[in-house]
């Protein structure tokens, strides 16, 4: 009996400190780990600005219009035209006058012509020319003031079977041009909304010249009276861009398969100053062979609301990349379908190269874990 007791005593430490062969680590431990099995959120940061300049600088649809538009000193996108329709040297006029000691109303030949506004091309891209500013300028080389009178009309382009429409007309009388002033603005007409100005017409125009033109400054005779116009139109986007724009992002090399991620949710607050509404209507995901993944879905129907300069509109945005079956594979390219819509709400709708889009508080939430090998 006592022998049995001794054996029991001997066996105690063996019994409770025995080796459990299920835990034999001599063959190594599988070093694959899956982190953050529920979800992990990571703040990514703020990204921006994305400006029309950066968009126009790239290749694509927007690239097609950059030859027709300019950036003014304030950064607004404009189309401009400038032309002189009358020029006459003082010396020549003085020589032709029957009596130089009297003031004279010098008639100017009627003038008309087309503007180089590229309106049709721009309208084809959904752009609107508004507001349009048409300015009449005069140059006075004399040392005395002069004045100009006449009438002007701004016309739209004729349509299919319809004549040109007078968009605006104005009669001006004795508009003063100060002495020794080149290109003095003597009349400005602004059209907001409506059709783009296609052509102009000046009629019954007179230069009201003082007596003894060259008496005070004979050298001014070498100068010339001139009349010119300046046309400037801001570009806005008041109509939906026709159709949808495909944007292919081919240089991606997102090797996600190894991480066995099931879902990635990217959230951001889009701050948009650009008076354009953007809608992401479709996203397709492709593998290295450019075969579309049918079981990988990306949230579409995303909308970024329009803003205005200095008054950005904040739009919360959430994009979910989800593997409907299994995990997200390697992604080599994306094909986005973008619709550009007219801005909503009131306010300045002019496009400015400095208007910016910011993706603030950009963060990613990964659900289902991130698998790493070899830790």
């Amino acid at each position: 009996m006592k022998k049995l007791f001794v054996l029991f005593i001997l066996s105690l430490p063996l019994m409770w400190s025995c080796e459990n062969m299920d835990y034999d680590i001599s063959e190594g431990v599988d070093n694959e780990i899956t982190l953050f099995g529920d979800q992990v959120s990571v703040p990514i940061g703020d990204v921006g600005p994305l400006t029309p300049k950066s968009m126009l600088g790239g290749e694509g649809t927007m690239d097609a219009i950059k030859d027709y538009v300019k950036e003014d000193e304030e950064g607004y996108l404009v189309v401009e035209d400038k032309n002189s329709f009358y020029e006459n040297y003082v010396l020549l006029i003085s020589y032709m006058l029957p009596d130089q000691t009297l003031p004279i109303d010098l008639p100017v030949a009627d003038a008309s012509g087309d503007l180089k506004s590229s309106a049709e091309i721009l309208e084809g891209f959904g752009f609107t020319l508004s507001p349009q500013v048409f300015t009449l300028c005069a140059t006075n080389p004399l040392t005395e003031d002069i004045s100009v009178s006449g009438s002007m009309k701004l016309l739209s382009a004729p349509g299919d079977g319809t004549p040109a429409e007078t968009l605006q007309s104005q009669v001006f009388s004795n508009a003063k041009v100060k002495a020794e002033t080149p290109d003095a603005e003597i009349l400005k007409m602004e059209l907001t909304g409506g059709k783009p100005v296609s052509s102009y017409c000046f009629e019954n125009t007179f230069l009201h010249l003082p007596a003894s033109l060259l008496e005070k400054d004979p050298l001014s005779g070498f100068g010339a009276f001139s009349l010119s116009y300046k046309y400037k139109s801001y570009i806005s986007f008041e109509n939906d861009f026709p159709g949808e724009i495909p944007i292919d992002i081919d240089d991606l090399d997102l090797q996600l398969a190894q991480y066995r991620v099931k879902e990635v949710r990217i959230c951001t607050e889009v701050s948009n100053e650009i008076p354009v509404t953007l809608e992401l209507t479709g996203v397709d995901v492709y593998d290295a062979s450019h075969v579309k993944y049918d079981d990988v879905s990306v949230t579409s129907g995303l909308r970024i609301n329009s803003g205005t300069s200095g008054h950005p509109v904040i739009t919360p945005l959430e994009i979910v990349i989800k593997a409907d079956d299994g995990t997200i594979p390697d992604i080599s390219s994306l094909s986005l379908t973008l619709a550009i819509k007219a801005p909503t709400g009131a306010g300045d709708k002019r496009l400015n190269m400095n208007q910016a889009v910011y993706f603030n508080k950009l963060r990613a939430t990964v659900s289902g874990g991130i698998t790493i090998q070899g830790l």
Partner: protein
Amino acid sequence: MRKTALLIIAALVLGTGAWAQGGITDNPADNASLDSGFLRIGEFQNTVRNNVGASSFLFPSGDKLVTGLHSSVSADDFLGGLKPVNSYYSQINYNLLSYGWKGASGYHSVDIGARVNYGLSVPEEVFHVLKLGTAQSPYDLASLKAFGNLYGEIAYSYAMPLGDNLSVGARVKLLAGLNSVDMVVRKLELTTTEEQYNLDIDADIDLTNMSKKVGTDDDGYLDYTNFSGKGKLSTPTGAGLALDLGVVWKPFSGFTLSASAMDLGGILWYYGNAGKSSGTYTFEGLKDLTVDEMDQEAILAKIKAAGEELLSVVKPKAVERLWKVKAIPVSAKMKASYAMPFLDKLSVDFSSLYTGYRFCIPYWESRAGFTFDYPGVARLELNAGGGTCGFVYGINGSVDFLRFRLYASFENGAGGVIPYEDIPLKANNKLFTIGLTYKL
């Protein structure tokens, strides 16, 4: 005779027998009953306590082992096996020499030895974040601690009887601090939302060494790759005092009640290489990332800048050399024994132990057992119980041969170990003691 020899051999084979006769880790009042002097050399005691075992981190999956972070291991299985604070603690006591003698009115002894403590505590929240993610923010990680120290002891004990039934004893220990590294985290809060991560930290890293100096970088942060001077492990870098108090009461025949409070004190360490991490770091993503900079190099530069900003908060900044008093692990023990009336060599024992640490969760246990004591031949004690580390059992005893007494003790828990590694699979208290006493 043959049976007796068998018992002696069994005890030797088991390496058991811890009737330490006033060992430096035992009740100082125990010596009051000794009637002769003793000389003890080389008592060695190794204690390892872990409130979680390897099976909390490794899981059999098919024919292989995976970690708790493997996808095949559910969060409940992994996190459910962890404790709020997961601690590993190790202590080595080495008693170089002890000498005891009986005086006119009491019993004296002196001991010279050394102790090594080291350990680590990791809060469950760390594994929670890794396993599940950041959805359940905020996380309090303040129980993250790491420590290690080495110090020498010179002790003087005095035990005396107070009447026939009561004995008291005290042990005064002069402590010579040799080296200490201590990471004290007072505050470590991690708040994670979709918009930002916020880390609030207040922690000290204290590293002693008289002669070897950790350098600093240009910004005043400790640079552990840059040392100057020659470090000597044996150079004292601290001094302290500790007190053991004990009492043994025998209110009636056969019954003994003993209680002791051990290691009441601490060490005044000189931390020549001290650092402090303090501040708040908020990460809200990579700021001012322009579209033009959306290339890998620019993003990496931003990430590096964010990392440096984090390091500027987390990295310990060198502080003036300072003195700090730090308590050593304190223990309280109580034991009740009752010798059987029908066989006075057999007693039934009940004991309990509490040990408090600054740097990890406290340890407690309660045990019941019995002891066979054949004076002059051998002594064997068996016990079992439970506590912080779950089920524990112990075997200790001694054998006497001429004037020599060889004693040993072995304590362990249930649950098995990793094959060939001796790493416990479950929470465990493992203690091994061996020593040799010569009776004068």
